[in-house]
């Protein structure tokens, strides 16, 4: 129903009748529930795959490397994304006393977003990936995300312009920051050169790609999993507690400080790498500074519950929101702690990091979404919650599951890190064989899988509770509201500058944009423009055509999700992996493949460490060469043929990215690749491998693995 003005009145604007579009909120609520179940099911599946390689069943579409990106995309963009849109569309209309700008745009937004999610589900298991964590979707889907995000933004800002409240409530400020920053992050990080419909290469290479990627990756957490939820918190916690936020003035300070500081923190993901020291230090310093605004927000949320703590025991909405704020406080304490270089040296690349991430996504996001859904579903379906007892059972199941998850990952992470670092009196590694450190923590992987299963069970309980609630309720008739339109009389006289700003959405949006631009520009622009910290090394050459094809297979299989490719300047790493990495080694890496986790060993200098035959046997059955390995088998690599036909376009794309391939190399790329494949196959044939392997993907992958680190100093030449 569109707005109708009925009562002209001078001074206070006209009295208008209008209704809220709650149908779009119901649609996003249902999508949230469905995709949440999918995301958690995927998470539990890959948790069991890490505990036992047999769970993979030898199927290439469900390996850890292919399902993990689907799990993270489903959890962040499908589950949390739909929940954000549901909560934003519900609260936005009510805070502005206006129906959403366009029903048509709302529907395009909804169906477009679901189509993007389905596209992710149809591409990632088949290995169509950019190879950049949390931004794995290929370029056509990236464009679709941009279009749908613009649709959301138009609908959102259009509603603001039609509002009947002069003041823009603080929750909406957080939504504005989210919309602007996510757009900037997504566009900058997704710049890539398409090679085919489902393949592209990142515009950036090596250390610059790493900086842009983790500027994006960290701020995806900040501006997709934090700021929109803080906005929702500032609306739904007061609503559920039936009392105003503890301190509105603190929320103003919270907003600007968080938005300004958060954007700087990305480099803490790259400590001890070849990123310039100053950028690492800036990232660490601002991460620690984040403690203040994060805890300011958490305290503001929890203090809103003062006086209603008795209801926290009995009301599911408050129970889940109180727990989510508690976990928000814990994970935002742990995050800056992990950013301190000396702590990061221990925690990085270990399971401590997934433990930290899940205390945020399950503890903060899932718990908050549960509370929000328990608030929204009874309201939208005009009924009461089906069962409070079931909600309480869900609460404890999820909490116990999450605690098991976090503790097991702390134990696994610290155990593994200490084993990696152990050096005896003679200066040798105590555990030189990486697999020793893996076997030790496998029991913790089982605990994690069990904890994850409990979280999934809790979600199923919520699904049942919510669907029963919907079933017993009804949508009912559309309610009509009335409010006065805005005119000049609603503008506050003699307001202080910030008070005036709170009623000027576009200027407010521009200032929020500038706040995130300052940190982004200072950290990224000098790194992109400056080459003085990368000493060019003539010995570093581009990959051969076959190695390039092998690298694409490495990216497709998601190897970077378990193996890093960067050696930190630490004694134990140099002893284990060889000379520490240098920025100049990665100048042709589009995209970089440093990874963020070492479930398996680092591969930066694996080239030449083992013979071709070792890699051949390792990929067919890792346990043949490394007993007790938890890596899945990759037998399809000896069945699927090398995609030679794609080489000319891939080499041309790389040349466009300033990789110095000659026209001759591009023209003869296929022949050059076939010659190299022949050499590797001859070596394998001498050890009994059939000649038929010559045109198979495994040969290309071996060529790539054997190249790693060789230009600058392979493992063998350093040990």
């Amino acid at each position, binding site marked *: 129903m569109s707005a109708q003005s009925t009562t002209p009145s001078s001074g206070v604007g006209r009295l208008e009748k209008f209704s809220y579009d709650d149908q779009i909120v119901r649609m996003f609520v249902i999508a949230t529930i469905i995709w949440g179940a999918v995301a958690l099911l995927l998470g539990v599946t890959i948790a069991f795959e890490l505990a036992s390689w047999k769970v993979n069943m030898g199927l290439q579409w469900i390996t850890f490397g292919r399902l993990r990106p689907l799990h993270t995309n489903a959890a962040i963009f499908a589950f949390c994304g739909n929940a954000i849109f549901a909560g934003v569309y519900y609260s936005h209309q009510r805070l502005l006393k206006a129906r959403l700008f366009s029903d048509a745009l709302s529907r395009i937004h909804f169906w477009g977003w679901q189509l993007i999610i389905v596209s992710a589900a149809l591409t990632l298991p088949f290995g169509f990936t950019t190879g950049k964590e949390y931004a794995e979707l290929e370029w056509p889907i990236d464009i679709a995300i941009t279009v749908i995000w613009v649709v959301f933004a138009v609908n959102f800002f259009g509603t603001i312009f039609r509002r009947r409240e002069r003041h823009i409530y603080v929750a909406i400020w957080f939504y504005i920051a989210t919309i602007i920053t996510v757009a900037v992050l997504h566009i900058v990080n997704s710049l890539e050169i398409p090679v085919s419909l489902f393949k592209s290469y990142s515009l950036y290479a090596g250390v610059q790609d790493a900086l842009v990627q983790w500027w994006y990756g960290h701020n995806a957490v900040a501006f997709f999993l934090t700021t929109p939820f803080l906005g929702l918190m500032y609306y739904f916690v007061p609503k559920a507690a039936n009392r105003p936020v503890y301190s*509105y*003035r603190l929320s103003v*300070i919270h907003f*600007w400080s968080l938005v300004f500081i958060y954007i700087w923190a990305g480099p803490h993901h790259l400590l001890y790498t070849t990123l310039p020291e100053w950028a690492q230090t800036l990232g660490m310093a601002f991460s620690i500074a984040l403690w203040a605004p994060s805890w300011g927000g958490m305290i503001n949320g929890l203090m809103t519950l003062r006086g209603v703590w008795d209801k926290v025991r009995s009301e599911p909405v408050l129970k889940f929101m109180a727990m989510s704020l508690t976990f928000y406080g814990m994970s935002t304490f742990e995050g800056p702690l992990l950013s301190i270089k000396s702590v990061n040296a221990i925690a990085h690349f270990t399971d401590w990091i997934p433990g930290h991430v899940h205390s945020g996504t399950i503890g903060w996001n899932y718990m908050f979404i549960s509370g929000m859904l328990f608030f929204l579903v009874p309201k939208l379906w005009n009924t009461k919650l089906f069962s409070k007892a079931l909600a309480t059972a869900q609460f404890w199941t999820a909490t116990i599951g999450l605690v098991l998850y976090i503790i097991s990952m702390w134990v696994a992470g610290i155990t593994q890190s200490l084993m990696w670092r152990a050096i005896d009196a003679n200066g040798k590694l105590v555990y030189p064989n990486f697999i020793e450190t893996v076997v030790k923590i496998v029991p913790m992987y089982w605990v994690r899988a069990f904890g994850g299963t409990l979280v999934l069970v809790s979600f199923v309980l919520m699904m049942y509770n919510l669907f029963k609630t919907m079933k017993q309720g009804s949508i009912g008739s559309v309610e*009509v509201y009335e409010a006065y339109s805005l005119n000049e009389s609603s503008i506050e006289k003699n307001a202080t500058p910030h008070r005036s700003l709170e009623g000027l959405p576009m200027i407010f949006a521009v200032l929020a944009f500038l706040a995130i631009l300052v940190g982004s520009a200072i950290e990224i622009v000098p790194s992109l423009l400056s080459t003085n910290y990368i000493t060019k090394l003539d010995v570093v050459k581009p990959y051969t055509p076959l190695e390039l094809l092998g690298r694409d297979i490495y990216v497709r299989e998601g190897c970077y999700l378990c193996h890093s490719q960067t050696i930190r300047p630490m004694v134990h790493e140099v002893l284990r992996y060889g000379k520490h990495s240098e920025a100049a080694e990665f100048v042709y890496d589009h995209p970089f493949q440093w990874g963020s986790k070492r479930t398996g060993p680092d591969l930066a200098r694996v080239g030449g460490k083992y013979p071709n035959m070792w890699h051949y046997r390792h990929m067919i059955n890792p346990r043949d060469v490394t007993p007790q390995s938890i890596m899945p088998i990759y037998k399809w690599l000896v069945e699927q043929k090398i995609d030679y036909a794609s080489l000319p376009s891939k080499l041309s794309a790389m040349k466009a990215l300033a990789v110095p391939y000659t026209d001759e190399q591009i023209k003869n790329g296929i022949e050059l690749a076939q010659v190299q494949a022949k050499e590797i196959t001859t070596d394998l044939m001498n050890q009994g491998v059939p000649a038929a392997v010559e045109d198979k993907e495994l040969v290309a992958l071996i060529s790539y693995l054997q190249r790693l680190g060789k230009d600058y100093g392979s493992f063998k030449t350093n040990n």
Partner: protein
Amino acid sequence: MYTEILSRFDKPWLPILALFIFGICFTAYTYWTFKKSNKPVYDSVSMMPLEDGVKHE
């Protein structure tokens, strides 16, 4: 360590400028927000989530 960090960065004034801008902005919005005269306004707007609007009967 600081010498090394700064020697490798050819624009050390940039983050210092950013910190300066943040400091000024932080002081300004904290002053404006906590100004005594604004208290009634913020107390009033903090009630916004509790009002869904007046239903038309």
